[in-house]
């Protein structure tokens, strides 16, 4: 490794990135372990942790914008996100340890594009967009579903960084949650995960007005399941239909076998996870509506 740069502002960071054709580092919680004891660190590294304008959480009408270098700890502690994006807060609180979460950033979790990245299913049920910026090309906005292109691959070009993530607030009254399974309850990469949004209709709330399902760790990227969502829209809230949702999720998953779990286990646990998460949401006491 030749240089580590510590820009203070975004324009400075982008300009250094363009000049050096370097790589960015923020929390380093993926980059450094991946560099095999720092043997293969990039030659030119641009540290983004001192660029304050990349760290923010703000409300903008029906959107919530989170700066790319906002740490997971800060996301967990944010009252706005606890209320308006509880599935994201739940997911962040399950990632790694306190030490990890104090450094890891939401932009890093997206850019690393692990199939098992836990922030990704919650971001997907919020129809998240990724705001990318570069010195040469200006800004562009792209759906997270288009940004993620496979294990460790994204649509990001050289010289671009994520500036912020833009989440759409859920429909009024929609409850959401995140659940995952790992080989241990802490410090474990997810073997299967799900973020679910459930909006029930009417006084009796026994009909599914809208359902959102996203899965993690069971496909090349985290995925949203629009076909499954459409099939259950307007259906009665019964045990049978929740089981149907689980079966559809299992059907639409495409897991691989690896050191952590078999393909079959991942499929079956996906079904179970979706059913349980939906059951939990349908039983939950009324959340405050804004």
């Amino acid at each position: 490794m030749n240089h580590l740069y510590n820009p203070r502002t975004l324009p400075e960071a982008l300009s250094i990135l363009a000049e050096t054709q370097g790589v960015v580092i923020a929390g380093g919680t993926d980059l450094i372990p991946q560099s095999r004891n720092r043997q293969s660190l990039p030659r030119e590294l641009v540290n983004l942790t001192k660029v304050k304008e990349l760290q923010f959480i703000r409300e903008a009408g029906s959107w919530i914008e989170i700066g790319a270098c906002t740490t997971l700890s800060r996301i967990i502690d944010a009252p706005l996100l606890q209320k308006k994006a509880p599935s994201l807060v739940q997911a962040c609180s399950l990632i790694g340890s306190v030490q990890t979460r104090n450094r890891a950033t939401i932009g890093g979790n997206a850019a690393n594009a692990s199939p098992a990245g836990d922030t990704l299913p919650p971001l997907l049920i919020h129809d998240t967009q990724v705001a990318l910026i570069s010195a040469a090309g200006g800004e562009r906005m792209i759906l997270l579903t288009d940004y993620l292109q496979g294990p460790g691959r994204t649509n990001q070009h050289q010289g671009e960084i994520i500036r912020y993530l833009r989440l759409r607030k859920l429909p009024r009254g929609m409850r959401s949650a995140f659940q995952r399974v790992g080989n241990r309850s802490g410090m474990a990469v997810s073997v299967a995960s799900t973020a679910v949004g459930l909006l029930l209709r009417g006084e009796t709330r026994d009909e599914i007005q809208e359902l959102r399902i996203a899965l993690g760790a069971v496909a090349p990227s985290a995925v949203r399941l629009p076909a499954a969502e459409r099939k259950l829209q307007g259906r009665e809230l019964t045990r049978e239909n929740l089981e149907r949702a689980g079966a559809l999720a299992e059907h639409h998953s495409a897991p691989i076998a690896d050191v952590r779990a078999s393909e079959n286990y991942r499929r079956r646990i996906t079904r179970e996870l979706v059913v349980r998460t939906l059951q939990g949401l349908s039983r939950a006491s009324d959340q405050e509506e804004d």
Partner: protein
Amino acid sequence: MDIQIKVNGINHHLQVEPSTTLLDLLREEMGLTGAKDGCGEGECGACTVLLDGDAVNACLILAGQADGCEVKTIEGLSRRGELHPLQQAFLETGAVQCGYCIPGTILSAAALLEKNNRPTDHEIRKALAGNICRCTGYTKIIEAVRSAAEELRNV
């Protein structure tokens, strides 16, 4: 590259290689060997230090990223030779066996108690989830943190 870093209350101006980690800096350059190199990949927590008050894995931070920051290591926890209540509690409770995980564990606990002086056992476990201990089975460690919390509340 040049960096300016405050360690245990003392300001330092240093020249570091870009690929040096904060852990290397503390152990090799400054002789502060309390933080340990257990895994080098942020999984074990033996390298835990406090960076601007937050518990972090020093092995995952490049020294250059800590420019302008304040670091506290286990060596900085005691005051004028007096052990911190956490250190005292760990000794008295029998929470220390081989001692390797202890500096990191105590600092994680210190960070917890700074934010929450009345943690439940669940909260203690969550705060220490990133500190692996191969010896004790954690029971005495939890007890020590509980005891230190009480001591700090009564001070």
